[in-house]
């Protein structure tokens, strides 16, 4: 009887231990699964990654309703939480459907139904990651990423810069504006290089963040209608008799003296000061 009792306790302990171990392993694995590879983008409207893994039940209805086969469900060796929807912009980008069928199909709210304007989607942010190989940066005219952008001139603009190499041309630099970029990936898809120089990265990778206490002065001013700090008081100087402070800050001058202490030719000034 003692042996059966001992065996029973042993079995119970074994079960409890085994299950606890499974639970621990599962928990650790779950934590790890929140780190998405940088090239994996979530569908439009996807809530933040950690919430997404609590919400998405891996049904694939979003995948089915995407008319462009953009989305796929992660498979066993994709290194993405298995069964969750994602896309690789370089393979098939999001075409930014106006009716957003993927979001409409989602039964759980993992894709937020509050997203009704596809321009407000933030699947990621495009970053021109390789300025060394981008043709426009080299001074050539490619512009393809700029041309294909559904939000051309808002999400990507072309900024002119002097081409110092040739000395007489401009470089037309594709420039992404994160406040308008949806992360659809059409630029990355279209980049003519063998490996895209412009890539859509998840926002957590692509974006920086200012200190939470930072305030941009001019924005605050625009909002308040006026400067938030009091205007500078007028400067007062205690100067020796007969001297005045030069307006441009170039030094003390005698009252009524109109000539500057500097010669018209800077070389002359240098020569004069180096003289003993």
């Amino acid at each position, binding site marked *: 009887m003692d042996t059966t009792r001992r065996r029973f306790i042993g*079995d*119970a302990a074994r*079960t*409890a231990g*085994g*299950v*606890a171990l*499974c*639970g621990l392993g*599962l*928990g650790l*694995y*779950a*934590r790890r*699964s*929140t780190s998405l590879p940088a090239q994996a983008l979530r569908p439009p409207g996807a809530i933040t990654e*950690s*919430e997404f*893994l*609590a*919400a*998405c*039940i*891996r*049904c*694939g*209805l979003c*995948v*089915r*309703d995407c008319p462009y086969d953009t989305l*796929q*469900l992660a*498979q*066993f*060796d*994709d290194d993405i*939480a*298995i*069964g969750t929807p994602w896309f690789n912009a370089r393979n098939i980008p999001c075409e930014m459907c106006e009716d957003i069928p993927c979001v409409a*199909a*989602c*039964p*759980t*709210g*993992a894709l937020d*139904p509050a997203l009704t304007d596809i321009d407000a989607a933030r699947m990621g942010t495009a970053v021109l990651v390789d300025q060394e190989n981008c043709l426009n940066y080299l001074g050539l005219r490619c512009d393809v990423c700029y041309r294909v952008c559904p939000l051309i001139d808002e999400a990507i603009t072309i900024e002119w810069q002097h081409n110092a190499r040739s000395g007489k041309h401009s470089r037309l630099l594709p420039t992404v504006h994160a406040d308008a970029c949806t992360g659809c990936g059409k630029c990355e898809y279209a980049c003519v290089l063998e490996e895209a120089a412009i890539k859509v990265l998840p926002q957590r990778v692509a974006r920086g963040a200012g200190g939470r206490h930072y305030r941009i002065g001019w924005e605050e001013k625009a909002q308040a209608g006026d400067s938030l700090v009091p205007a500078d008081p007028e400067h007062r100087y205690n100067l020796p008799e007969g001297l005045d402070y030069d307006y441009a800050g170039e030094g003390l001058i005698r009252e009524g003296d109109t000539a500057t202490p500097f010669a018209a030719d800077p070389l002359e000034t240098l020569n004069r000061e180096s003289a003993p």
Partner: protein
Amino acid sequence: MTQIAQQPGTDAIAAKGWLLAHRWLLLRRASQLGILGVFLLGPWAGIWIVQGNLNASLTLDILPLTDPFVLLQSLAARHVPELTAISGALIVTAFYVLVGGRAYCAWVCPVNIVTDTAGWLRQRLGLTGGTRVTNRTRYWLCGTILLVSAVTGIITWELVNPVSMLHRGLIFGMSTGWAVILGIFVFDLFVSRRGWCGHLCPVGAFYSVLGRVAVLRVNAARRAQCNRCMDCIQVCPEPQVLKAPLFGADEGSGSIIQSPNCTNCGRCIDVCSRDVFQFGTRFSGNAETRLQFAKETQR
């Protein structure tokens, strides 16, 4: 040389013919493959009757169905799902409360075909032995999963669940996920009899819990005719559920299989040459007593 034991069901085949001795098995396979087939009709033939997979689906663009266990994990992870998913889960729950929780296992789950095959092969090859894993492990696992989901805020079982991995994999692409299914097959074949479905699978455990109040049940109504051939015990994936209803008449056990672990697979009905079992409801009284009652009132 020991004589190879007679395969269970031989008597039944002799008594009723092969077809009747496999009736529920055939129906069950038709149901499992049929359900899978309807899901595959979309991606393979472009006929979209059902979209999605067993975790959640949309039938004929109108009927939402959601796996309640996945949704429960989502709730535990503190996500409040949209109404579509919730109503889908309620429909599924109501359905299995009617037909028996683990009817999911016997009639829907694609892994069941794998584990049934492993179980059948194990019996054929006369393999015995293996580990001692209590069949309550699955309940502990089921609870642990909900706990871990709550702690991590992530639907955890879906990260590794072989059931949805197989079903989704067949429909959406599987890659090396086959290895997991092969693992279950090998486990059931060599390591533990009915090891996966009978001892470990938390999905099955969850549906067992749903089945505690299930209406449709197997009834050993004519247990008095039982000749103790033990064929039902040999084929049953959860043989412990049969003991009391079949042999417990003297101890006052009812003839209805009340255990939520019964999968309503109906295999016991198939292999019984004495026609002991039948499907009934949990409220249908013992047929013997009713018969007796009828006789007494006639008198």
